[in-house]
C-alpha cells in the first residue's frame, strides 16, 4: 500500500482523478435532470479536438479541452432549439463536425510533431502520464465550478427540473442555460484530461444517472453521485496499479477500470431501485391505507 501511495504517477492520478470525480458528479446531476445527457456526451467528444490542437499549439491540454468544449457548448446553444428532437439533431451535427476536426488535428499531431501517444491520451486518457503541472489548473477548475454552482444553486436546480416554473419565479432561463454550459464545459475539460474525451461521458452521466435512481432529492443525489464517482476513480486507479502484477508487467489502462466500475455501479443502482419499488408496491398492496409515493 505504501508503494502505491508513494508512487508519483499514482499521486498525480489520484489528485486529478478526484477532481474529475467531484466535478462530474456535481454537474452530472444537473445534466441528467435537465435531460441533457446526449449534449454532455457530444460536448465531451468534441472537446477532443481541443485536446488534439493543444499539442499543435503547445498549450496546456486542459486549456485545449476547455476552449473546444466552450466553443461547442455555445455553438449548440446558438443552433439549439426548444424541441427535444431538433435539439438532438443540432447536437449530433456539432458532434460530427467536432470529431472531424479532432481527426484532422490528431493527424497533424503525429505527422508534424513528435507526439506519438496523442491519440490514445486525448481520446482515452492516460491518467498515469499526466504532467504534475496540470494538478493546480485542475484544482482551480473544480473550485470555479463549485463556486458557481454554490452561488446559483437554487435557480440552477429549478431551471433543470422545471424551466417553466423557473421563468414564472423570475429566473432568466437564458442566463441559467449559459451558466450551465459554462460549468459543463469546465467539468468536461477536467474529465477529458483524466479519462479521455471519449470516455468522459461515462464519468459525467454514469454516477449521476445511478444516483438519481437512488434518490429523488437533488442534494442527496449529488452526494450519492460523488461517492460513486470517487469510488470508481480510486478503485480504478488501484486496480490498474495492481494489474501490473496480474499480467506480468503489462498493466491494463486506468480508464478501462474506471469506466467498468461506473457501469457496474449503474447496474447495481438499477437493481436497487427496482427492488425498492417492489417493496413499496408490496407495502402499498398489503396495507391499503398507505399510498405509494
Amino acid at each position, binding site marked *: 500500500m505504501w*508503494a502505491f501511495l508513494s*508512487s*508519483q*504517477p*499514482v499521486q498525480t*492520478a489520484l489528485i486529478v482523478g478526484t477532481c474529475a470525480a467531484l466535478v462530474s458528479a456535481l454537474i452530472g446531476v444537473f445534466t441528467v435532470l435537465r435531460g441533457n445527457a446526449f449534449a454532455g456526451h457530444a460536448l465531451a467528444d468534441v472537446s477532443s479536438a481541443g485536446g488534439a490542437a493543444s499539442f499543435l499549439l503547445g498549450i496546456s491540454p486542459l486549456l485545449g479541452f476547455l476552449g473546444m468544449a466552450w466553443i461547442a457548448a455555445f455553438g449548440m446553444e446558438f443552433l439549439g432549439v426548444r424541441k427535444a428532437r431538433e435539439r438532438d439533431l443540432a447536437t449530433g451535427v456539432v458532434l460530427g463536425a467536432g470529431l472531424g476536426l479532432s481527426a484532422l488535428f490528431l*493527424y497533424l499531431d*503525429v*505527422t*508534424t*510533431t*513528435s*507526439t*506519438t*501517444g*496523442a*491519440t*490514445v*491520451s486525448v481520446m482515452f486518457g*492516460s*491518467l*498515469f*502520464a*499526466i*504532467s*504534475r503541472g496540470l494538478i493546480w489548473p485542475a484544482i482551480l477548475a473544480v473550485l470555479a465550478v463549485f463556486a458557481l454552482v454554490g452561488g446559483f444553486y437554487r435557480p440552477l436546480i429549478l431551471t433543470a427540473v422545471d424551466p417553466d416554473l423557473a421563468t414564472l419565479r423570475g429566473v432568466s432561463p437564458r442566463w441559467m442555460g449559459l451558466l450551465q454550459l459554462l460549468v459543463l464545459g469546465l467539468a468536461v475539460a477536467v474529465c477529458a484530461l483524466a479519462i479521455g474525451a471519449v470516455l468522459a461521458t461515462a464519468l459525467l452521466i454514469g454516477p449521476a444517472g445511478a444516483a438519481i435512481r437512488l434518490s429523488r432529492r437533488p442534494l442527496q443525489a449529488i452526494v450519492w453521485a460523488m461517492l460513486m464517482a470517487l469510488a470508481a476513480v480510486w478503485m480504478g486507479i488501484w486496480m490498474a*496499479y495492481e494489474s*501490473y502484477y496480474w499480467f506480468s*508487467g*503489462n*498493466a491494463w*489502462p*486506468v480508464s478501462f477500470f474506471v469506466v467498468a466500475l461506473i457501469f457496474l455501479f449503474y447496474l447495481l443502482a438499477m437493481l436497487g431501485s427496482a427492488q425498492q419499488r417492489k417493496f413499496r408496491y408490496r407495502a402499498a398492496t398489503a396495507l391499503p391505507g398507505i399510498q405509494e409515493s
Partner: protein
Amino acid sequence: MHYTELEKTISARQPKLHISLRPSLLSVLTLLLGLGTAQLAAASTIHAVGVENQYANVISQIGGKYVQVSAIESNPNTDPHTFEASPAVAREIAAAQLVVRNGVGYDSWAKKILAADPNPKRQVIVVQNLLHLPDSTRNPHLWYKPETMPAVVKAVAASLSTLDPAHKAYFDANVQKFDASLQPWYAAIASFKAQYPNTPVAVTEPVADYMLQAAGCDLKTPWNLQADIMNGTDPAPQDVSIQNQLFKTHQVKVFLYNQQVTDSLTASFLHNAKAAHIPVVGVYETMPTGYTYQSWMLAEVKALRAALEHGQSTTVLK
C-alpha cells in the same frame, strides 16, 4: 498488325513516300508502346527508394551516379512509427525499381503499397528478412545493429547489378569502400566496451538499444516502459517509479533520450535526469540532416563516450 496494314496501304498507294515515312511510323510506334520505357532507356539511372532515410543514404553510397534515390521518412521532428502515406508517396514507391524497407512492423504501410501494385521486375529488400529476424522481434530499430548495414549494402549491390549488369564492378567496389568506412564506428564501439564495461544506462525508447548492447551497456530501463513510450500507450506507474529511481539514486551513468518521440512523461524523465546531473545523449530514429549513416552512428558513440569521460550532455546532434 494494325500498323503493318496501315503501312502496306500507304506504301501501296504512294510507293515514293515509303522510305521517308518509315522512320516516323517507327517513332510513333515506340511512343505508343510506352512512354515510360522510352524515358527510362534514355535516362538509364535506376530509381530507388529507401523508406527510411538511412537506407536511402546507403543506397546512394553504393549506386553512386547510376542511381537516383529518394527517402520517404526523413523528418527528424516526427515519429516514423506513426507515419501515414500519402498518394504521392504511394506513386513514388510503386514506380521505384529498387525499394529498401526496414520491416518488423516499422513500415508496414510500405508493405501494403508494394502489395497493392505488384511488379515482378521491382527489387524489394526487407532488412528484417536479410537478418533472418522473426516478426515477433521486439525492437524494430535494426539500423543501430552493427551487423545490419554490411548485409544491406551487399543485397543492394546484388539488386543494382541485376538491374544494371554493366556496372556490377562499380557497385561491388562501393561495397568494399562502405565496409571500410564502417571501421571507425566498430573501433569506437570496441574501445568503449573495453574502457567502460557494463555501463548502466537509462533510455526512453529502445531506439539505440542494439548499439548499446554491442557497446556492452547495461540497459536499466524496464522493457515494458520502453515499449509503452514507443507505442504511445499508458505506462505502468511501477515502471515510471523504477525509471525515476534510476536517476535519483544515480544508478545510471547516461540517459539516452529519443528526440523524435517526446511527451510530458519523457519530458519529466529529462527533467529528473538533469536534476540528478546525469548526462543526456539525444538519439534519433531517422538520420539527422548533415550526416551520412556512418558519421551519424560514429557521432552517437562519441556522444556516449563524452558523457562518460566528461559528464557532457549531447542533446542534439549538429
